[in-house]
């Protein structure tokens, strides 16, 4: 009896559905979407994907910048990979990169959050001035930031003068630490803005509720603020990681990877091999490794993100 089926509502005879060839009704693909996507993706594919693919291929050749194999080059299979496998300089470069990236992430997170939370309860003029300074540091082009930091951290520089040790050369003595700090300096502004937005989205009632339950400041931070900031932090971590991993200009201007190879992180080592040592292919292979690392980072990130949303 039809009527009763209907009244029962939730129960629908599956066979009838099949008869009507039911489908999940999704919005249909619109051809105008293609028109919207084409400009961006055409550019990305032609100017980015194709060169990236070509560079990936170059990693398995013997191409050099100059010399006989600059012209007559070809596929050499796994030769470069074998070399990479036994390259101690590459290994130390990996370690340096890891320190640089992890150090940058930690520093950016701490300073970004600290600044953002302080800014929330400061007087307007302090907010404008200090926020402005941090944002300028973020927006300063790498070449200028690099020179500024070089000048500030060598003997006779601002920091040496400030600490009263005007003859100490911080950059020469702790090169990796100094370039990491410089990188933190230049990326904190971004994190500060993002954290600021996220903090503002935490309803004050939640914090007040915690107050009522007499939570200590640290408890409040750990149990309430931190979990709510987790998505923000994940986003910052990923972006700082990607931007730091590929950071070339800042270190190139400050130390060119030196002294020795003390700040020779992967992008600089790739550049050194490709352009200073003329080994374009080997440099490209190191670049490939970086792309793989970036991809692993991305996948891990998606994992974390999806775990959260579950």
């Amino acid at each position: 009896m039809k009527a009763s089926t209907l009244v029962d509502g939730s129960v629908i005879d599956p066979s009838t559905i099949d008869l009507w060839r039911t489908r999940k009704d999704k919005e249909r693909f619109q051809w105008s979407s293609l028109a919207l996507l084409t400009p961006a993706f055409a550019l990305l594919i032609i100017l980015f994907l194709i060169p990236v693919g070509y560079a990936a291929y170059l990693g398995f050749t013997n191409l050099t910048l100059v010399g006989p194999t600059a012209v007559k080059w070809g596929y050499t299979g796994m030769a470069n990979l074998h070399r990479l496998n036994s390259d101690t300089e590459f290994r130390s470069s990996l370690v340096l990169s890891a320190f640089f990236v992890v150090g940058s992430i930690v520093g950016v997170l701490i300073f970004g959050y600290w600044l953002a939370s302080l800014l929330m309860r400061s007087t307007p003029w302090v907010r404008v001035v200090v926020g402005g300074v941090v944002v300028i540091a973020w927006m300063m082009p790498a070449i200028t930031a690099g020179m500024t930091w070089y000048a500030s951290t060598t003997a006779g520089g601002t920091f040496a003068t400030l600490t009263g040790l005007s003859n100490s050369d911080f950059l020469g003595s702790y090169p990796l630490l100094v370039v990491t700090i410089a990188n933190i300096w230049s990326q904190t502004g971004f994190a500060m803005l993002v954290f600021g937005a996220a903090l503002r989205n935490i309803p004050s009632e939640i914090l007040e509720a915690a107050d009522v339950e007499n939570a200590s400041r640290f408890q409040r931070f750990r149990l309430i603020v931190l979990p709510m900031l987790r998505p923000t932090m994940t986003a910052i971590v990923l972006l700082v990681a990607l931007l730091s991993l590929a950071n070339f200009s800042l270190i190139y201007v400050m130390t060119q990877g030196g002294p020795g190879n003390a700040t020779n992180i992967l992008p600089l080592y790739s550049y050194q091999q490709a352009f200073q040592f003329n080994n374009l292919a080997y440099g490209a292979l190191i670049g490939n490794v970086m792309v793989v690392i970036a991809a692993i980072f991305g996948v891990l990130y998606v994992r974390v993100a999806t775990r959260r949303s579950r």
Partner: protein
Amino acid sequence: MTLPASEGTVEVLEALEGPTSFNMPPINPETQNSRTRKALSNGLLLVLGLLFLAPMVWLAFASLDSQATWSVEWPHFTLSNFQTVLSGTDLQALMNSLILAIVSTAIATVTGTLAAYAMSRRRIPWKGPLLLFVLFTSGVPLTILIVPLYQLFAIYGWLSIIPTAIFLAVTSLPFEIYLIKNFIDAVPEDLEEAARMEKANTFQILTRVVGPLALPGIAAAAIFGFVNAWGSFIVPLVLISPASQQPAPVAIYGFIGAANVRYGDIAAYSLIFCVPVFLLYAMSARLFREGFVLGGAVKG
């Protein structure tokens, strides 16, 4: 391979709505406790601000110093550094940088907005993997692209400023798409449906409804694109053939001669170099502060 749900990705990236809200409203009503806390915050902030400011001291001093070196010294006051760098080819280089950055920003922001809109609102097959692909590309180091790009540019005779600007646009495109997408996601769909019922076409919806409402995000993305193009050194150096089209970061290398380094000029030029970027930020700061102008769109 099925990439895990893009939903999570998108959600997390929503946190990037950061620049929307540079305004941080005062929290609690003033109490005795909060007043001391405020004073403490102010003090700490000023200390942090000084630390962030410290590296910039050299720039200011050296730019005004006729005998500038790497070290910070009280300047032998002069304005000649500024006069030198604001003339001739160095000025031309600044103009070139402007052209490079403006063209690049315009291209990246326009194409990025279109793509971001489609990504946000339309049903697109493999949307998740596509978004991830866009994200990964932003992690590719530019140095490994120099050779393939040079070949490509040489083949088609693109070794000049405009094609280079287009390439720089591409380098900031992934991030711009993400940023703008997150802002468009936050524009209520009702508004767009209302416009669609009014027979508005996609272009009208974009320019009159979604565009204006996602403006803070678009502006933030544009600034990112501008800074990216404005500060780039290696890409224009390699991809631009005519010296008369080289931008300012390349010109800075002109102050580092084989025999001497013109520190004062470098500092002065660097300072001038920061001005447009800062102006851009100052101009759009109001936009950020207003945040979403969605007040009034929904609810009573």
